[in-house]
């Protein structure tokens, strides 16, 4: 009772810190030593392809896996590495929901409170409040098998929030839903998490979901965090090739910079691009939307291979040379036909250059 009452007052959850957190299974390292700081109330998205270690990192924070060493995970500065999940007070939303088929929607949501011996009246009131929050009041007495996938996901979320967890952990919560529902729930979950102001770690392989939900995104690759930052940073200033390709579409132009101008290898006309800096061999990267039409002078020319209509914009596949194909987003009212030669330029501020290995 008392512990529950005190939990109600803490609205923002705990901060999470990992220190050299690592995990190996049977000698295979799944997560390399990782330092991570998540301030109280922040939503961090772990983004990456399958097998990158994002789910392992989440399960370590949850207490469903044991880290390789002691004192590697702290909540609000308190070491929780040895605390089992049932005592860690974390809310968990699973990809497969993990709802109890033998209970109704309301019983599922109230289960954590029942375990905590919260009085029946208070438990029912709290359950009703959470069901209202996720728009499921009418479904309270339905069995889990009698509600839709989206409603199950909301039930799982309400159930995890009901226990006033110190941190909320979500493992690909929308992966099992169809595209339309996924997009809608993505927005709803983002709003709900911010309303609760709870510290949350959200695992996904969907970059659009990551952008929509995360205060910060940690892009993971092969058991390591490749880059961590706010969504805009990840998108506009990717730390390496992997991040650049995983998040959004990235174009690459290889060439040589001489006197501050880029000469493109194999261009039909020797295209030149003003980039500055010392002479070097390099690859320049830019997003499709950084391109704009230009007068032939001082621009890159390319042959249009295909166009796709997107509504406000159209995406062009354009060949600068046989090795260099680019994707360009241009206004859709522009009339372009395949085969046409196009002159375009790139917003210099949007050009990204990674260190080229010698």
């Amino acid at each position: 009772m008392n512990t529950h009452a005190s939990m109600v007052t803490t609205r923002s959850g705990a901060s999470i810190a990992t220190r050299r957190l690592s995990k190996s299974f049977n000698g295979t390292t799944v997560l390399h030593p990782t330092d991570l700081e998540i301030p109280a109330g922040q939503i961090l998205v772990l983004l990456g392809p399958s097998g990158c270690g994002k789910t392992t990192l989440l399960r370590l924070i949850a207490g469903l896996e044991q880290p390789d060493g002691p004192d590697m995970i702290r909540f609000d500065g308190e070491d929780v590495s040895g605390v089992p999940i049932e005592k860690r007070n974390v809310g968990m939303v699973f990809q497969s929901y993990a709802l109890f088929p033998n209970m109704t929607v309301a019983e599922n949501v109230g289960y954590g409170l029942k375990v905590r011996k919260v009085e029946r009246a208070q438990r029912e009131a709290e359950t009703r409040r959470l069901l209202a929050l996720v728009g499921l009041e009418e479904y309270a007495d339905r069995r889990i098998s009698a509600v839709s996938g989206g409603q199950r996901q909301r039930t799982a979320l309400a159930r995890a929030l009901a226990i006033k967890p110190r941190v909320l952990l979500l493992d690909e919560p929308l992966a099992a839903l169809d595209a339309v529902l996924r997009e809608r729930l993505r927005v709803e979950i983002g709003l709900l998490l911010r309303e609760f102001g709870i510290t949350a770690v959200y695992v996904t392989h969907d970059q659009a979901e990551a952008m929509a939900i995360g205060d910060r995104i940690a892009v993971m690759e092969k058991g390591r965090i490749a880059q961590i930052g706010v969504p805009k940073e990840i998108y506009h200033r990717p730390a390496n090739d992997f991040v650049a390709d995983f998040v959004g579409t990235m174009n690459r132009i290889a060439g040589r910079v001489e006197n501050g101008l880029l000469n493109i290898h194999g261009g039909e006309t020797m295209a030149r691009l003003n980039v500055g800096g010392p002479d070097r061999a390099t690859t320049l990267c830019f997003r499709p939307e950084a391109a704009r039409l230009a007068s032939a002078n001082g621009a890159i020319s390319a042959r249009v291979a295909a166009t796709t209509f997107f509504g406000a914009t159209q995406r062009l596949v354009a060949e600068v040379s046989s090795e260099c194909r680019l994707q360009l987003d241009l206004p859709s009212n522009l009339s372009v036909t395949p085969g046409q030669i196009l002159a375009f330029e790139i917003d210099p501020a949007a050009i990204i250059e990674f260190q080229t290995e010698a």
Partner: protein
Amino acid sequence: MRRQWTSTAGIVITALLSLFLVVPVLLSVYAGLAVNYARGPSAGFTLDWVGQVWGLYADTVWRSLVVALLTLVVTLLIGVPGAYALVRKGGRFARAAEEIVTLPVAVPGLALALALILSYGGAGAFRQSTLFVVVGHVLFTLPFMLRAVIAVLETIDWRTLDEGAASLGAPAWRRFIDVILPNVRPGIVAGALTVVTLSIGEFNLTWMMHTPMTKTLPVGLADAYASMRLEIASAYTIVFLVMVIPLLIGVQLVADFTQNRTAS
């Protein structure tokens, strides 16, 4: 046309087979009610034989029910948590354990009984009690309970259910009771049905293990066949059927009921 021909043939074959199996049962019932089996129906019908059987063997009927019930309780207590433990553990060890537990089904009941008598025959009071028979029945029926529960556990995502309940703060025992048990109920019911019917009908093992004071129904039946007139032995069959059929129907109803509840 062709399909009709095969389905008609199917019905005929099924009917003949059913008849082949049902006729002996009907004949037994008839023999138990006939005044004199050898003289045929003209001699008339009577319930005297049934009355005599009840007078002579009523205790074996009750003992069989008690043995079946105790066997069921023990197999539930060992079998259900055991099945969960084996599935959780997984791997080679679990498979080996399952094989070993299943052995008593493959070993002839007589050999199993002999082994039990050799081991515990010296313990007088235990050897002479009904509990001794129960131990034999548990050894024989436990694998059926284990298998039934394991089969259902393998179809549900027990690991995620367990993790879900753990994340909500439930300790291990509570997760087992609140979440695992209700979701393996169909397996428990199926296992219980098998255990009870096997225990009530078990003869092999029990015949070897029983004492004059611990006769079960099938052992009494063998007794009657060996030492009484045919009509009494047949009347005994009637008692057995009257006892077992409602029991089987009852357990099946319970099974259907729980199935419907989980399905809806």
